[in-house]
Structures are given as C-alpha cells and as structure tokens.
C-alpha cells in the first residue's frame, strides 16, 4: 500500500487544482510524440503527425492530451486506492488499446517536464519528488492488469 504524508497530499492537490488541462494536456502528449516518436504508433488514425509542427497543431492530439490529463483526476481523488481505481483503465490499455506499458513512463516524464516549465522555480526538488512519486504509482497501476 502506498503511504502519503499530509504534505504530499497537499502538494498533489495543489498542482492539479491550479492546472490548465487544455494547455498542459496537449503540450505533454505532443512532447511525448516528438521526443519519443515510436509512441506515434498508437495514433495512426489521428491525422498528420509528420513533423513536430504538425503534431503541435494537430487538434486530435490536443483533445486527446486533455482527456488523458483528466484521467489523472481519478487518482488525485483516490490517492489511497489508485490500484483499484485504475483496474478498469489498465484492462482497457492492455486488451483494447494494446499500449506497451513502458510508454506510460515516457508520457509521465514529458508531463513532468511540461509542469516544470510551467511552474519554474516553484517546482522545487520536494515538489518534483512528490509529483514523480504520484506518477510512478499511476504508471504502476495502469500496468497492473497486463497479462
């Protein structure tokens, strides 16, 4: 079971309550597709991903980025039960979407970078540690139902 201190809960809630999902979601997903181009394999039906500019302006990617980021809300609201909360989503990613779970970490890293750029020096080492701990738990839960 993951243990969260009061400070960690507060940090996580703070980050998400001040988040512009429509800005950060698209930026994180676009960055993932550009920095780790093999992740584009899951988005063949999304239209033009031919170069970085195309990815950054692709409306389907933007919509999906926002959706994925909102997917984290469930974890924020259920910090003490993330594994169970994501059981269904994990099955979806495995059985239906066939996403290699290693990709979750890649997106998590890109999200960390985008949040760091947004918060600047307010993204202290302690806040970074808490945020990365949170994402690691989410990533683990999403990979849990793969068999």
């Amino acid at each position, binding site marked *: 079971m993951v243990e969260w201190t009061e400070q960690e809960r507060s940090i996580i809630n703070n980050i998400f309550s001040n988040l512009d999902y429509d800005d950060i979601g698209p930026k994180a997903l676009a960055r993932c597709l550009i920095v780790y181009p093999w992740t584009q394999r899951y988005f063949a039906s999304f239209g033009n991903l031919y170069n970085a500019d195309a990815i950054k302006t692709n409306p389907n990617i933007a919509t999906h980025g926002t959706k994925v980021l909102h997917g984290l809300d469930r974890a924020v609201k259920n910090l003490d039960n993330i594994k169970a909360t994501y059981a269904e989503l994990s099955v979806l990613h495995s059985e239906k979407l066939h996403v290699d779970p290693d990709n979750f970490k890649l997106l998590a890293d890109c999200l960390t970078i985008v949040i760091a750029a947004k918060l600047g020096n307010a993204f202290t*080492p302690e806040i970074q540690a808490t945020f990365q701990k949170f994402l690691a738990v989410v990533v683990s839960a999403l990979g849990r139902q793969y068999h």
Partner: protein
Amino acid sequence: MTSLSAKDKDTVKAFWAKIAPKAGDIGRDALGRMLVVYPQTKTYFAHWKDLSPGSAPVAKHGATIMGGVGEAVSKIDNLTAGLFNLSELHAFTLRVDPANFKILAHNILVVLAIQYPTDFTPEVHVSMDKFLAAVALALSEKYR
C-alpha cells in the same frame, strides 16, 4: 540507440551556447534535485557532509559535471574518443552504475525546462535527450 544527426548536433550546440553561462547553476540544481528525488543516488556521496540542494559540495560537483557536459558538446563529433579519459574515470575509479546517467540526464532536462521554458521546445528536448544518452553511452564504454 540512434546516433546524433547533423540537426541534433546543430540544435545541441546552439542551445548549449545559450545556456553555457549558467552551466554551473544548472548542474548544481540538477544534482541537488537528483539527490532528493532519487535518494538511492546519495550512496555515491556518503563522504560529503551536506547533501542538501544548494550546499557547497553539491554546487561544486554540479559545476564539475556540467563542465564535463560542455566538453562533450565540443567533442560532439566523436564522443567515444573525446570522453576517453572521463570514461576511464567512471569505469575504474568512480564505478557509477550506468543506470544513474539516465537519472541525472532526466534531472538536467527538468532544470532546463524550468530555466528555459520557451527555449526548451520539444525539438530541443529530443536532441538534448539523445545527446545526453550518447554521452552516457560514451562514458560507459570502458566499463566492461
């Protein structure tokens, strides 16, 4: 891992020219972050009195590391040959597990995102990520 394209090298050199004046600060911040976010890395610095971000040993060593990265930029066309001595140092004396190169690289990228939010575009990010991976590979050359 792929080798660096001409575009990657140009991107890295141009971005490095921009950030070089603050290289020491970047190194200090990245190393400090790594020790907090990945506590297992503290095992390499048990001989330091103070491992907190911004402490004297962290600041000094962060600057040393970024000096090495700067050297790598200047030797970008042949990292294996250019980083020969540093590779021997890491292989035989320091014996840092190469997994940690990736961890430090991640923290350098986080600091670059913080300090250069508009300049650290996805295109710059991918080239820098590839470059740091290539540096790590060159540093691991002599390990076995």
